[in-house]
């Protein structure tokens, strides 16, 4: 048996070993990479972001999947919830799947741990599990009145009495639904809610389902789409670059304005900012421990904590005209003296992204290696096939 025949008859277990290594190694050793954002993701991000701080706007997230598709869909859900929490956007959740109910809880808890001021019934509301048999009455009913169509939330509270429902009556206010599924389930919203109420629809789907959604995207029936882990990674990046971005002098909590709306912290989407070199330090997925300021930025930052100036001055180091503070050098006593808010604010300035908010990007590194490896396999297989074919032709 010559080498080409061997290549053709390679035992599949060797392929499995190479695939396993190609996936495990990049997951175990993260490296920085940049996921170029695609228009369907950017459109969805911008649509949600336009609701920032508004009391009369809300997003509905529909978790129509079970645990099997979580590796692809869960990072998207976490990224969108984080976006909403960062920018004070009201968010509702529901599921038509019994297995979806714990996924909603898990997603909320995953994000909420980092946002202690976010409250259930005020900033978000979980409608919980609604049997699929009631999907149609619920979808159509919410077009008239949300609190009538869904009477209680997952915690058994009357929806009409919740703070979050003030200013949100039907799809005129809750005018975007994002359906997460490993199928074309988003179609239900498209067929019933969009023609009748003009509801805006977006989907988060597994990569294998993405191609099926393009007809709806092109026709404008869907305003955006997150396609597989790549979509999740792109959304994570946008949240880091815009929604979670803070100038050193920004307040830690958004003040409420006279009309009830809240000032949205972070910054609005801009294609120009995405092209800037400076965003690279905002999207590093390797561990970042140093907060770096220009002298002016440092003054703006410490002005927020006038009684902690001495501690910050004690921690700072001057390097190449920049002021740096290494957060790993802060002792427990100093951390206690700084207090939770100032310490958390300083840590935010390091632009270190905690693991749960960069899962998709770490996964994309693994996918990078796996894709390239599969392409190499395809090319090798074809080379072997054609050489073998040429030899056989010669022999005949």
């Amino acid at each position, binding site marked *: 048996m010559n080498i080409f025949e061997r290549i053709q008859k390679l035992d599949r277990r060797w392929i499995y070993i190479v695939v396993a290594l190609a996936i495990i190694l990049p997951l175990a050793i993260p490296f920085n990479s940049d996921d170029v954002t695609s228009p369907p993701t950017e459109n969805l991000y911008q649509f949600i972001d336009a609701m920032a701080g508004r009391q009369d706007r809300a997003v509905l997230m529909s978790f129509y999947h079970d645990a099997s598709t979580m*590796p692809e869909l869960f990072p998207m859900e976490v990224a969108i919830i984080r976006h909403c929490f960062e920018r004070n956007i009201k968010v509702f959740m529901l599921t038509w799947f019994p297995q979806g109910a*714990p996924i909603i809880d*898990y997603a909320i808890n995953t994000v909420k741990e980092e946002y202690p001021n976010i409250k259930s019934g005020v900033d978000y509301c979980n409608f919980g599990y609604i049997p699929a048999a009631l999907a149609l*009455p619920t979808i159509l009913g919410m077009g008239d009145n949300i609190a009538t169509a869904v009477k209680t939330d997952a915690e058994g509270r009357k929806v009409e009495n919740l703070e979050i429902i003030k200013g949100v009556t039907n799809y005129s206010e809750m005018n975007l639904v994002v359906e997460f599924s490993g199928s074309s389930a988003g179609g239900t919203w498209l067929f019933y809610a969009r023609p009748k109420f003009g509801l805006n629809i977006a989907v988060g789907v597994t990569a294998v389902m993405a191609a099926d959604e*393009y007809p709806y995207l092109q026709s404008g029936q869907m305003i955006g789409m997150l396609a597989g882990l790549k979509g999740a990674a792109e959304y994570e990046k946008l949240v880091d670059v815009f929604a979670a971005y803070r100038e050193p002098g920004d307040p830690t909590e958004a003040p409420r304005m006279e009309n009830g709306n809240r000032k949205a912290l972070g910054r609005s989407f801009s294609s120009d900012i995405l092209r800037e070199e400076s965003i690279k330090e905002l999207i590093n997925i390797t561990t970042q421990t140093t907060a770096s300021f220009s002298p002016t930025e440092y003054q703006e930052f410490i002005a927020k904590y006038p009684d902690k100036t001495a501690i910050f001055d004690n921690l700072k180091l001057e390097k190449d005209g920049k002021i740096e503070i290494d957060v790993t050098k802060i002792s427990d006593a100093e951390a206690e003296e700084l207090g939770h808010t100032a310490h958390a604010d300083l840590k935010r300035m390091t632009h270190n992204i905690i693991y749960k908010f960069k899962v998709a990007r770490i996964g994309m590194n693994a996918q990078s290696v796996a*894709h*390239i490896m*599969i392409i190499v*396999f395809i090319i090798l297989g074809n080379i072997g096939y054609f050489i073998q074919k040429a030899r056989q032709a010669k022999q005949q």
Partner: protein
Amino acid sequence: MKKTIPLIIVIVGGIIFLLWVFVPHKIMADDFYYEFFTPWARAMAPFAALLGVMSLSMMHTAKIKRRAPKWQYSYFFFAGFIITTLAGFIGGTQKGGIFMWMFENMAMPMSATMFSLLAFYMASAAYKAFRARSVEATVLLLAAIIVMLAQVPMGVKISKHLPTISQWILDVPNLASKRGIMLGVGLGSVATTLKIMLGIERSYLGGGE
């Protein structure tokens, strides 16, 4: 009679829902749908769930009694069903309880593992079967390689034009074929629905007609 009554139910139900979609009158939109249909649907949903549990339990009980092939696995169904139900009823379904612990540490990893096996089969299939045997297969192969490369950060480093080319493949050739398939499926669905509603297609009632 056994077939006539279900047939009448299907035809009448079909016509009512057809009218509901196309006639925006109060009688159809409010009186029928919200006052009549929605409360009935709400009342029926728990019975449907109960029916599912009963059917599944009966099927597994019968399997154990008959010692059918792989009957031992039926015990796992009962164990899983009873333990999960008790955990949910006793400890609640919120974080910190046994239910959520089981979901996070058992259901999630097991389901994800099953789904991730797809990657191994895809890699193996790509190597063994993805051959440029014809012009069509070569076009498919090239499109696949471009889209796969454009999906990942490493691919974009090879050429910054890859995402644009990939987006074109998805937006134009992919879209044209998808739309063609969807139109075909849509027309087929309409034809089948009409056949069912007019009583021409009766195979769903069982029997050989």
